[in-house]
């Protein structure tokens, strides 16, 4: 095998691309958890819904219609979930929450099956992003570069909002100590609601972005859930830094594991997870020190 520099560049880009996709998913989940202490296992199902909405909208109005509509539609589903179910579950403890959202996974999965059928759907990459771009001496698919750029852009935007704006300060205060934040006059409930909807929208966006790359199947949400949870546990709960660090670690371990030690590829990431849990149970960058 001729493993030149180009090969490693290609693999590094692959790793980065996978990391960014996971980041879009895990950031929503981790902030919801950090702020609300609410484990939303149905987050993966929302991602699948996003992919389906994108595929349906794309069939009518092209890829970009799906790209912009899917996050809005999934945020809409988030509003329904929040007002119908999650608001009532706020005080009922983690076990009940896990059970309810676990049940939601299967309810949503069957709804997608009933509405869209069992056959996998496909979604074409938009013309603008079809083809490949020469970069650092390798030809890389433009659409994958777009995912990397989008992930970095979302990371930048969230970092700015969380660290430089008033609402960001309120969210950080809420994550740190919600009772104290409420005493200071912050409407924590409303904050929860906004964060939950943004998290859902990001899951929808991730689904729309992943759809042309992967196939759109009812169980895609289940497949992505475990990697997302691993990212959060490695990165640390509730923090942006943790989500991006966890995503990068997962992406690079998964990709280079598949290249360097293919027999161990599926075990490596779990071994890392176990190591993190033993050595640093709170994760690498937890929101609360």
């Amino acid at each position, binding site marked *: 095998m001729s493993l030149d520099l180009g090969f490693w560049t290609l693999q590094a880009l692959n790793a980065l691309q*996978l990391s960014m996709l996971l980041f879009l998913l895990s950031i929503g989940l981790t902030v919801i958890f950090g702020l609300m202490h609410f484990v939303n296992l149905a987050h993966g199902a929302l991602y699948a819904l996003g992919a389906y909405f994108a595929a349906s909208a794309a069939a009518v109005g092209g890829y970009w219609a799906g790209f912009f509509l899917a996050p809005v539609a999934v945020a809409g589903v988030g509003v329904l979930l929040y007002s119908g179910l999650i608001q009532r579950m706020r005080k009922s403890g983690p076990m009940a929450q896990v059970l309810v959202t676990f049940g939601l996974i299967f309810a949503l999965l069957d709804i997608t099956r009933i509405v869209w059928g069992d056959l996998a759907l496909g979604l074409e990459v938009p013309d603008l992003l079809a083809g490949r771009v020469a970069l650092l001496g390798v030809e890389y698919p433009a659409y994958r570069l777009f995912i990397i750029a989008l992930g970095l852009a979302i990371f930048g935007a969230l970092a700015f909002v969380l660290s430089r704006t008033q609402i960001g300060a309120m969210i950080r205060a809420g994550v740190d100590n919600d009772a104290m934040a409420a005493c200071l006059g912050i409407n924590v409930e409303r904050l929860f609601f906004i964060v939950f909807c943004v998290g859902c929208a990001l899951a929808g966006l991730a689904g729309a972005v992943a759809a042309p790359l992967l196939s759109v199947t009812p169980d895609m949400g289940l497949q992505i859930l475990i990697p997302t949870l691993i990212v959060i546990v490695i990165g640390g709960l509730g923090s942006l830094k943790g989500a991006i660090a966890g995503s990068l670690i997962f992406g690079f371990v998964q990709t280079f594991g598949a290249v360097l030690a293919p027999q161990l590829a599926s075990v490596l990431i779990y071994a890392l997870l176990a190591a993190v849990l033993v050595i640093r149970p709170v994760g690498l960058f937890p929101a609360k020190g």
Partner: protein
Amino acid sequence: MKRALLAALGLATGFAMPATAQDIKVGLLLPFSGVYAALGNDIEAGFTTALEQFGSETPATFEIVREDTEVKPPVALAKAKKLILQDKVDVISGIVSSGVLGAVRDMVHGAGVPLIVANAGNDEATGEACSPYITRMSFSNGQVNRPMGKWMHDQGIRKVYTLAPDYAAGRQMIDGFVQTFTAAGGEIVGQEFTPFQKTQDFGPYMAQAKSSGAEAVFVFYAGGEAISFVKQYDSFGLKAELPLYGSGFLTSSLYVNAEGPAAEGVITALHYVPTLDNPANAQFVEAFKAKTGRVPSEFAVHGYDAGRALIEAVKAGATDRESLANALRQVSFDGPRGALSIDPATNNIVQPIYVYETIAGTDGLTQKVLAQLPAEADPVNGCEMAAPVSN
């Protein structure tokens, strides 16, 4: 006295039975939910199409009891028990996943209930774990890929990189190909098995295939993984420099349209494509389209031929579990796939394999048959059973 009379009466009606139309109870054991639900639906539609089309050839009536395996071996085993003990079916058909087939094998073998396998392709089912009660009308993993090794070598391809998901079927499919390809003088320059249903991004493996020095890539993927793989392969621009070959499930007509233009030019081998040019297939495609609005897939034809095989067995005079099992092993007919027969040594189907290229047609993607490779019976693989009784 009274009891003797009743017994005589029972005997008399028993003997009288064959004269009246008999009722054959069929258990359809298929996944209607879970990852293979689309396959289960296609097989059922094929099966019922066959009963509608050929049912009039025999006076017997067929009653279908359908059960959902959920693609879970323990669930499937419970459902098989229910079909055998409670519904008292005469014959079972279906089974998509090899894991499920492994789980119900001892049950049907022990109870002596004939099982017509309509998908599951694990080589052992008609090898060391064969049973006179289990007849396979679908394919075996090795069978589909074995002819492709020699064919690709004949096309002048000498160095191949292989990829498949890391589970029994993936390994058997690739092994079938590798055996004949290396026997013909080809070289496998690299081989990778990706974590089954855990791999969403095939990019890392593709970069490896590219740098392996291979002239072509041979893969097996199915369902969602096939769609992701074919699209990602094309997005890296590999199709032009490193042609993609594979097991025909890669570009199955069931989901090839989700792959889109990325699938154009991919060359694979399978035992059925809907564009086969023969009268039996024309009739089948028309009937299936009228029923479902879709082009039939290889899964649909499994169901169709399983239904047809059952009718042929009944036509040959089979009436109960034992005689059905025996008759099913001797079934042969010209179906949409061409001339089919059952190999009495293993109970596996013997059928031609078609090499086809996926091309753009007038409405969506279609299949262009490049070659028909001769039907070959599988090696016996440790299968030991008595020959069927011919009447």
